């Protein structure tokens, strides 16, 4: 009579699940009690639940969404996502909200240029600083769009190569989210000298330095991930350690520049140039190089040469310090940025040091190219047959290198943060079955690449007033959108036999 339900279905074994369920059940009972107490069942049924009034339906959707949101927090299902996934998610949210400002700025600029309007010229009531405002309203969240995925990469690398769970995972997640929100509240620090009142400058200065707090927390979380670990010093880890040490210097100079009176001193000097290179080279670029060396075997099936990777690191880090530390000093000496030529003798020694640094960075770039060529040549020796060359912790390492087109033939069940490490610790072999369900795969499509190319042609034609080309390229873009939207046959199915074949090959380690 009760189907499969028994007392075992009640989660007594888990305090969290039990607590969440009890709160939900009692919350529901309280609501029912309140509705009964006020004798509101008839009113609720007639005026709300059976209503076709779209305003009331809208209100009920909002109430439902809020309830589902609360439920999501209780489940906390997202708190087992790898940190890189979190940073990618926050980055995507930032892109959704930041890019419209750039779209508007570009559209208004187009109107100024093409139709003689005056949004950004001081004639006829326009204001140049509106452009700076709109541009940086996009531009500042954009630097976090650049750096947050790199923060995710450092998190994965530092946990993997320390052979340890990531320290302070909830802090890292919240810090990422806080950075995402705050990134929209700081853009004015790019032009404190615009002439805004002290009120405005002080507000944006303070908001800017608040971002330093979650970022500092992240640095310490990565440090404590290494504490009591077993650190393997492979090339991705080199970039990560170089980042931790160098990035905090840029953090300090960033907070200094966020103090409006100090910014009046340092605005548009090489101190600023040194600061943002200090953030984006060790912050973002080192992260992407770490990610490149970390995931290269997963994507291609063979590892990159370690020796050349480490050489590239040393050239980059030494070159970076030599190239940019002198720029901080030159900033104190009052050197403006973007100079065509100069005749201040005391700047010269520092600029020569910076030039030497730039040459060493060039050596680093050459090392990266050599590393790539050497690795491709020796790819048979560097072949990754296990799919898990670094003793990885997250699920991508459970696949072959490179992975099958569908990634996982059987969707893995995740009940721990480092899902693959948990599987390895339990000593469970990779799930292998005789029968596989067929898998639906999306077809490749050239639409994106072609539209991107044509959008470039359209922009070029608009800038240079080549009207026929602008109209033609825009018409083709529209046409592709329409054709693509009406194309209903953009999927193909891998039959269960094909999936089984790929999986058998993968288990023998002979996949191409």
């Amino acid at each position, binding site marked *: 009579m009760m189907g499969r339900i028994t007392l075992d279905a009640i989660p007594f074994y888990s305090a969290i699940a039990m607590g969440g369920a009890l709160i939900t059940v009692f919350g529901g009972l309280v609501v029912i009690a309140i509705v009964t107490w006020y004798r509101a069942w008839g009113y609720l049924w007639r005026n709300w639940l059976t209503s076709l009034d779209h305003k009331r339906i809208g209100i009920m959707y909002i109430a439902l969404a809020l309830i589902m949101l609360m439920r999501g927090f209780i489940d906390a299902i997202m708190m087992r996502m790898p940190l890189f996934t979190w940073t990618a998610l926050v980055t995507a949210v930032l892109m959704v909200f930041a890019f419209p400002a750039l779209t508007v700025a570009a559209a208004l600029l187009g109107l100024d240029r093409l139709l003689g309007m005056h949004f950004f010229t001081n004639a006829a009531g326009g204001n140049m600083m509106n452009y700076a405002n709109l541009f940086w309203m996009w531009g500042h969240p954009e630097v976090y769009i650049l750096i947050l995925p790199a923060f995710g990469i450092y998190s994965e690398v530092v946990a993997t190569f320390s052979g340890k769970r990531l320290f302070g*995972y909830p802090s890292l997640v919240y810090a990422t989210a806080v950075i995402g929100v705050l990134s929209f509240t700081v853009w004015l620090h790019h032009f404190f000298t615009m002439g805004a009142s002290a009120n405005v400058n*002080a507000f944006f200065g303070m908001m800017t330095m608040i971002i330093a707090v979650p970022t500092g927390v992240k640095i*310490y979380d990565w440090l404590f991930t290494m504490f009591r670990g077993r650190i393997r010093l492979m090339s991705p880890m080199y970039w990560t350690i170089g980042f931790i*040490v160098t990035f*905090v210097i840029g953090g300090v100079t960033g907070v200094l520049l966020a103090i409006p009176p100090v910014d009046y*001193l*340092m605005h548009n000097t090489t101190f600023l140039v040194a600061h943002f290179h200090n953030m984006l080279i060790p912050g973002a670029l080192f992260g992407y190089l770490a990610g490149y060396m970390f995931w290269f075997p997963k994507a291609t099936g063979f590892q990159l040469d370690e020796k050349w990777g480490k050489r590239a690191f040393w050239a980059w880090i030494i070159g970076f310090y030599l190239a940019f530390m002198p720029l901080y000093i030159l900033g*104190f000496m009052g050197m403006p940025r973007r100079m065509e030529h100069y005749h201040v003798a005391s700047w010269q020694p520092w600029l020569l040091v910076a030039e030497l640094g730039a040459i060493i960075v060039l050596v680093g770039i050459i090392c990266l190219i050599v590393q790539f060529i050497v690795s491709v040549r020796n790819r048979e020796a560097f072949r990754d047959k296990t799919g898990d060359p670094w003793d990885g912790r997250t699920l991508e390492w459970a696949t072959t290198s490179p992975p099958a087109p569908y990634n996982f033939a059987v969707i893995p069940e995740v009940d721990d943060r480092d899902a693959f490490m948990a599987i390895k610790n339990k000593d469970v072999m990779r799930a292998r079955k005789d029968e596989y369900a067929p898998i639906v795969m999306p077809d490749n499509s050239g639409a994106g690449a072609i539209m991107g190319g044509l959008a470039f042609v359209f922009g070029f034609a608009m800038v240079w007033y080549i009207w026929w080309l602008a109209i033609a390229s825009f018409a083709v873009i529209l046409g592709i959108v329409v054709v693509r939207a009406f194309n209903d046959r953009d999927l193909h199915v891998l039959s269960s036999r094909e999936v089984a074949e790929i999986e058998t090959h993968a288990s023998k380690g002979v996949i191409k």
Partner: protein
Amino acid sequence: MFLLSRFRRPARLQEEALKDCVVRIACLYALVPGLLLAGCDVDPGPVIDAGGPVGLAERDLLFTAGGLMMIVVIPVFVLAFWFVWCYRAGKGASYMPNWSYSGRIDAVIWLVPSLIVVAVASLVWIYSYKLDPYRSNKDHG
């Protein structure tokens, strides 16, 4: 560093490893004054060697804020080199693969930077007004 002392285990090997680290860190610190002095014989430039009262106030603000931030920054340098040195594979230091949270460390790494930011933000509030270049003359009294 005081935070870490509570994780220290009485294992003899590790005590020695720690001593080793401390000595090395002390050597690193000994180098710092030398590096600072090395900067003295160059032209300090208009920012450091400011002439007027506004320039001097701005410079002092720079130094104060920079100094405050050293509370967070110097431990990063020390811990980064210390941890990499002491916990690299093959060194035989203690290994806790599942240790991933400590409420105390979490509290300190959120609170200390927050307090520093409160301090620097107060300076920002006060000095953005004091040093506002658009302030009219009658406000200066």
